[in-house]
């Protein structure tokens, strides 16, 4: 395939974080908080995608494989207990094959009325180099598998291991999915330009992502708590002007360790104890935004970009 690569993905227009129409969340909340546990299954020996190796070490990379498996065997429960204590529902970024591998985890989340959205089939199957039929097959598989095991139609998408093609967003919109978590360019929901239909991006922070903090930035548990609180405080302050979104993406294999759960729980408790925060899910943010702000935003962005 000799298609030229683009300099701009063309998924959205420039729209500065000033002079925007005001967003107000339900009950006058200034920040919409959603907490997004990634529930993942990594295969020991997956087929190889030419664009990315599945593991840092040669197969079998039992160190990394088992570090991920820890989340399902041990960490999930500890993380879920914190959610239960603080009355937070998760918005699950799900490798959908986990429904088959570990149905017990799915049942516990269903019992708690958590949202499920798709994070691909496995975190070791990347979308790079897929043709359209293959990418459609992945999306259809995700929709059907989640529906079968949870009764929910997925509303959101986080690309498996954050791997995309140029057509991913177009296809998601076509299948009736409402939002993507893969665009990190804003602290408010944003319309996404797709071939047909309506589609938005909801802020899903890499900066607040536990795995980025712990495995990329090599941060400490207490610093993670400090970062979460500072992020919230700032978004709350700005939310008085126009509502903001804070996302805390989690992985039980990171935050679920004993030495990390305490500082995380303390930060989450601090955040949800505020009055001006709407503790919600990705789906609810997307629906509320579509009902109240999508049309006016598209119009405003069009005007700002010369009546496009």
């Amino acid at each position, binding site marked *: *395939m000799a298609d030229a690569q683009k300099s701009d993905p063309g998924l959205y227009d420039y729209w500065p974080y000033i002079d925007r129409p005001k967003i107000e969340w339900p009950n006058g909340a200034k920040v919409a908080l959603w907490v997004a546990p990634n529930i993942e*299954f990594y*295969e*020991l*020996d997956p*087929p190889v*995608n030419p664009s990315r190796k599945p593991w840092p*070490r*040669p*197969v*079998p*990379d*039992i*160190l990394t494989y*088992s*570090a*991920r*498996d*820890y989340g*399902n*065997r*041990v960490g*999930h*429960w500890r993380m879920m207990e914190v959610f239960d204590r603080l009355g937070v529902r998760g918005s699950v970024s799900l490798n959908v*094959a986990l429904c*088959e*591998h*570990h*149905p*017990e*985890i799915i049942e516990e989340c269903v019992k708690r009325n958590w949202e499920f959205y798709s994070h691909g*089939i*496995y975190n070791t*199957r990347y979308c790079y*180099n*897929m*043709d359209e039929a*293959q990418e459609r*097959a*992945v999306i259809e598989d995700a929709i059907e598998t989640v529906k079968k095991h949870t009764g929910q139609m997925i509303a959101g998408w986080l690309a498996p291991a954050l791997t995309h093609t140029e057509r991913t967003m177009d296809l998601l919109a076509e299948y009736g999915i409402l939002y993507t978590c893969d665009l990190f360019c804003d602290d408010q929901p944003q319309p996404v330009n797709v071939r047909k239909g309506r589609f938005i991006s909801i802020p899903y922070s890499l900066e607040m992502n536990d795995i980025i903090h712990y495995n990329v930035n*090599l*941060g*400490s*548990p*207490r610093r993670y708590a400090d970062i979460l609180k500072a992020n919230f405080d700032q978004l709350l302050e700005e939310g008085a002007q126009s509502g903001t979104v804070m996302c805390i993406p989690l992985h039980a294999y990171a935050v679920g*360790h*004993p*030495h*990390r*759960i*305490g*500082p995380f729980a303390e930060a989450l408790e601090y955040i949800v104890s505020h009055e001006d925060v709407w503790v919600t899910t990705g789906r609810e943010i997307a629906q509320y935004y579509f009902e109240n702000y999508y049309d006016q935003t598209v119009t405003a962005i069009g005007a700002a970009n010369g009546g496009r």
Partner: protein
Amino acid sequence: MPLPPEYLKYSRRGYGMDQSWYDWSMLPKRPAVKWPNGARLALWVSTAVEFFPLNPPTVPFKAPGSMSTPYPDLRHYTLRDYGNRVGIFRIMKVLDGLGIRASAAVNSAVAERTPRLIDEIVKRGWEILAGGLDMGHIHHGDLDVATESEWIARCVETLRQSTGQAVTGWLSPARSQSMQTMNLVAAQGIDYVCDWVNDEMPYPITTANGQLVAMPHSHEMSDLLIIFQNKHSEEAFTQQLIDQFDVLYREASADDGRIMAITVHPWIIGQPHRIKALERALAHMLAKDDVWPATGADILAAWRAQQA
């Protein structure tokens, strides 16, 4: 070019794991395990006793801590050797003072090169774990079975002869295995492996040569991870160990024991400015009278006696 059709086939998609070494199981759903004398936590300290050759191979990768400047890298060679000459004696003094017998994961090259050090370890009643030949002999997927089998046999044999101990535990250099490693160590009369980081309690592993137990030899609660890799301070190291302990202690009970495992490297924690960071954390733990300092073999024996 699109991906081959096999990329969307999922041959191991089904209940449980995608390999046959162990069963899927969530820790909170398992039968309780009791430790001797009503202890809530077993405290397992493991000390790495390693030889880093001046000329390590680069395939498949260099173990963390290996030579990293051009040959001859006297800087890192001697920094690692510092651990076996000086640092380990600081660890011994701390553990002797607190009445802790450690497990020592020993590269058999150390037994050949410096038997005096092995005598000091054995004299204290520490348990010897087989730690491979040295840090330049990494077990990995492309290693042929005959070679790997010879490495394992030579390591275990050398350590049994030089220590007089049964040597029933195995820790691979850099926690790296091939698909055959567990079959081969089982054939050498090893009872338990320490490479897997997916659990906080022992669990059974099935091999072609009988059953092993995976023991939760800590990867996270380690000076290698917290200080050497993550570059956190000594104070943060102590804090994270204490936080880990406090959460595990709270979750455990006299009727359902858990394991606090700590892994230390004499070339890291044995530096003068660091040793007290370990001592403070251990003193915090042993201030509770229902904490049981034990070796890996002690914990395994207690656990096994309660398995149906």
